[in-house]
């Protein structure tokens, strides 16, 4: 790809997703574009870009899927899950009547390990799980991974942090190192396609008490990070929490949230006393 072609492609991707790439990531970009050119039978960048701009056979979505990084595993960064049951949920239910619903959003959820982990963790570690309607939604921009998340079949690499008794309780062996999450759990989580920098798309998800938004903001540039932070803020109930990845800090992105330091994790909170929209 020439410098100009790379710039055009990066600009296109940025406008569609908020993901920011430049000359420094040329190898990463070229590899993915080459894959898509091969898959679409394009013989030049110009012909591929024309096909992309016309979104022939959903090529925009295919390209976005090729650019999103989807490797994850069960119980990743489990200190935040401990924080969820040791501290965050107690704060959330303080203001809720018994039997109320507690809404948790995993965005991006990739192939579903995170929302399923949250569900298993709650069932195992939150004594009040039966007292509230816990609604877990997993969202991602990548439709391929959402399909895999709905399918709920995982390889041994994704299960490396799960104790054997949990594996037995929540999964059914499929052979050849594959495990399928039990139907009851699979059917209790809703998966939706959402672009975190799209205000309208995020708004359709309703309000949440806790949002897990881990390891995605690092892929955005400053402008998209700010926008995503405001969208997350908008999606939270007053007093709701955002959990970011261990290398991410909301304080460097937006002053909207209060930093909350708990024993198990640092999280970010929408101030109380902000009216519900």
């Amino acid at each position, binding site marked *: 790809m020439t410098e100009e072609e790379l710039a055009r492609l990066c600009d296109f991707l940025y406008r569609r997703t908020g993901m920011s790439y430049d000359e420094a990531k040329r190898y990463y970009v070229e590899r993915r574009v080459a894959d898509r050119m091969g898959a679409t039978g394009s013989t030049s960048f110009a012909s591929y870009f024309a096909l992309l701009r016309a979104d022939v056979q959903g090529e925009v979505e295919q390209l976005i899927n090729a650019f999103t990084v989807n490797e994850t595993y069960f119980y990743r960064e489990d200190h935040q899950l401990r924080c969820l049951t040791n501290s965050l949920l107690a704060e959330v239910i303080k203001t809720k009547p018994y039997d109320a619903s507690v809404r948790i959003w995993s965005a991006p959820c990739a192939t579903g390990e995170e929302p399923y982990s949250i569900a298993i963790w709650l069932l195992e570690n939150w004594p009040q799980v039966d007292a509230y309607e816990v609604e877990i939604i997993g969202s991602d921009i990548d439709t391929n991974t959402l399909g895999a998340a709905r399918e709920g079949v995982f390889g041994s690499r994704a299960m490396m942090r799960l104790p054997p008794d949990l594996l037995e309780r929540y999964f059914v062996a499929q052979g050849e190192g594959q495990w399928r999450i039990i139907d009851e759990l699979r059917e209790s989580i809703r998966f939706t396609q959402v672009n975190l920098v799209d205000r309208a798309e995020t708004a359709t998800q309703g309000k949440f008490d806790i949002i897990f938004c881990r390891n995605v903001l690092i892929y955005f540039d400053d402008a998209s990070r700010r926008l995503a932070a*405001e969208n997350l803020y908008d999606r939270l109930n007053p007093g709701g929490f955002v959990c970011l990845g261990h290398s991410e800090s909301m304080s460097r992105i937006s002053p909207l949230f209060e930093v909350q330091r708990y024993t198990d994790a640092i999280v970010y909170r929408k101030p109380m006393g902000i009216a519900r929209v």
Partner: protein
Amino acid sequence: MPLIRKTPEAKAAPVENLPAAGILQTGSAEERWAAARAAADAPSGARILGEALLHEQDARVREAIFTSLVRIGSETSVDAIVPHLRSDDPNLRTGALDALRAMPKAVTPRVHRLLHDPDPDVRVLACDLARAMPSAQANTLLCETLDTDESANVCGVAVDVLAETGVQECLPALARCAMRFPDDPFLAFSIKLARERIASEGDARRMADRHP
């Protein structure tokens, strides 16, 4: 299984579609927040947001105004934000700087003018904005600052940025700046560090060229 699943419609919230200008002037904080966010998609959004920024007192709404101006990323956006670099309110000043940093393409053509602002505090912030510019452009502007700016503070920040972006060609301007402020030991120290760093990077580059 106590976990439940609901249909998307059960909790869906409508997207705000508000006549931004009026609400930004008279609405509640919550309405102004929503209107500021919606204004990024409105015709004349940057102008409307710029006017709102002049009187908005709520920090949260201001943040939404800044983000929408960044999202628009036009010259009008930059013009709406720049005057707030002179604000006495440190939160507003920082918010303005952060917003400008987030729109480097739109800001780059204005950095030269900001580096010649009569207010040295604005010139200090302009040096910081130059950090996000293409290095060659930033180096030219900052070397000019080292040669002409009367404020040691402004030159100090320019030196700080050049320590990151500078190349061999910047060394003479750094030396001249040290001579212009002979009684400022901190600036002399910063310049010494910057020169050493640029010189060592130049050596490393020459070595790499000889042994690819």
